[in-house]
């Protein structure tokens, strides 16, 4: 009941500092309550650790070929078994965390680098520029993501950065829309008019007021884009147009398994599990963030 809630949160009417601090604390408390979100957070820390430490903690090199032990099911020597070239699956999975994270995180970041400035400009300048940006947004959101990605991958050379670039071409839309919406509504606020009357440049208003409001929402937008990027990287690598060898990627491992994977369950189970758990964890993380910051925005 909202009334009960407002009673509970009734603060002594001294400083606004109290409110800001309590907002973050309250958000954290809400986040903590969501067990899937906590799992996502823990997993995130774990996988970053694995990815960073892969050269140190992986038992074998990711490209260590050993024809004597091809297709081996899990043994003490190779805890998760070996693939068709005798490479250790566990090590390759560990190394595979790198491209997954890189693509996932960088895509979101690049998407924001493109989307946020465009959104602010669109909202601030309005007019023809805004109309043009909006048409671009329509265009990019109407097309299936893989269309653009495939195009760019085809046209550019295969590399992690190009893949990231290609994926962020379709992901910038979200942050752009968000920021544009916020900028537009900020312009309507009375305090903006008042500030302008006082001679404060609009630029400053935007930075002081719009962006701080946008920050938690952008964080959430960023987090919710990660599962999609992970999925996209896995899928594309599986098809052979994502991460190319020698760097292993989980999707690539699935794709390389060839026609024999049906008889060697370990070759497809472990990479599949990694992909599913990662997407699940990041999904949970994003969901938890959404609950924590009480997303309630009409873009």
């Amino acid at each position, binding site marked *: 009941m909202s009334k009960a809630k407002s009673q509970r949160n009734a603060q002594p009417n001294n400083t606004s500092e109290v409110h800001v601090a309590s907002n973050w604390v309250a958000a954290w408390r809400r986040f903590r309550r969501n067990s*899937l979100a906590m799992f996502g957070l823990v997993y995130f820390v774990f996988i970053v650790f694995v990815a960073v430490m892969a050269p140190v903690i992986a038992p074998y090199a990711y490209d260590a070929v050993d024809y004597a032990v091809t297709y081996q099911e899990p043994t003490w020597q190779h805890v998760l078994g070996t693939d068709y070239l005798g490479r250790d699956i566990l090590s390759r999975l560990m190394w595979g965390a790198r491209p997954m994270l890189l693509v996932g995180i960088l895509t979101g970041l690049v998407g924001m680098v493109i989307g946020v400035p465009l959104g602010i400009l669109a909202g601030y300048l309005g007019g023809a520029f805004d109309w043009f940006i909006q*048409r671009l947004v*329509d*265009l990019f959101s*109407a*097309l*299936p993501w*893989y*269309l653009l990605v*495939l*195009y760019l*991958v*085809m*046209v*550019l050379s295969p590399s992690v950065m190009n893949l990231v670039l290609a994926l962020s071409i379709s992901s910038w839309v979200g942050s752009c829309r968000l920021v544009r919406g916020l900028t537009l509504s900020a312009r309507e606020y009375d305090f903006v008019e008042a500030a302008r009357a006082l001679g404060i440049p609009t630029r400053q208003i935007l930075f002081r007021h719009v962006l701080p409001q946008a920050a938690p929402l952008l964080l959430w937008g960023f987090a919710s884009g990660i*599962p999609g990027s992970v*999925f996209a990287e*896995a*899928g594309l690598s*599986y*098809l*052979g*147009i994502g991460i190319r060898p020698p760097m292993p990627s989980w999707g690539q491992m*699935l794709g390389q398994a060839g026609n024999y*994977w*049906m*008889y060697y*369950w370990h070759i*497809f189970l472990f990479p*599949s599990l990694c*992909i*599913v758990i990662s*997407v*699940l964890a990041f*999904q*949970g993380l994003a*969901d938890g963030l959404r609950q924590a910051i009480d997303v309630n925005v009409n873009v």
Partner: protein
Amino acid sequence: MLNYTLRRFSGILIMLLLLSFVTFVLSRTVPGGPFGKVEVPMGEKQLAQFKAKYGLDKPILEQYVTWLGQAVRLDFGTPFTAPEMTVTGLILKLLPYSALVGFLACMFALVVGIIIGMVSAAHQNSWLDNAIVTYSIVVGSIPSFVLGFILVYVFSAKLGWFPAGGWGGPKYLVLPVFAYGFPATAGVARWTRQCMVDVVSSDYVRTAYAKGLQRSQVMSKHVLRNALIPMVTSFLPMFPGMMTGSMFIETVFGLPGLGKQFTLASTNRDYPLVLGITIFWALLISMTYFLTDILYGVIDPRVRIMEKSS
């Protein structure tokens, strides 16, 4: 209403033009085209002949205008990798396979997803609701091709109930449709639940009860009607989205569809084909969005009136 329609339509037209121009220029100007030395090694004279044949030696703008002129008549040329057919012909040949699988998968996703979503909304905050929400998150995290693998492993390799791939009778459709449609049920269920809950907890539903309506009357005359609006506008675009063919499903199951062809075409740098499929997809999807917008304008009186008065 007419105004609204026209505006939307022109917007889409502009978008398509923009898209076609950008993709066209991209494909022509980037180094390493289909005649790069690695892909198709050929001598200087042969290269020149080839280029002349495909009009690749003319200035970009002229090429584009030529292409546009043909495109408007739905003539996208011939694919480099299959010169015996036209691009349009090839697309039309492959489309039915993708469309069938996509349509069935979409129906499956919608039917199952909507039912689950409504059950979830009806028992909001109960254990059933929480279980369903968890289901949505978990199932939604499984990529379709991973599910495809699992299904083939279990039902094909181990149990032998269904074939692992290829095209034949209905038996060949079961696993792909399920692999494609099942993860989609999660999103459908989630959105259905969201729409239903939003409506059920709204003030006007409370008013409906306050007027003396019984539960069944409130559900049918107020809740469903209002919830269907956002639901339909989100679910309708799923059809063309899925009927154009999933690259992943078609690759896993070896289906002769548009999606698989697209990946092949792009790896082979078959520009006419890639361009043709791109435009086709863009056209299909924009048309659907356009139709959905119109539909929205018809069902939601607020939009109708706004447009009339503006």
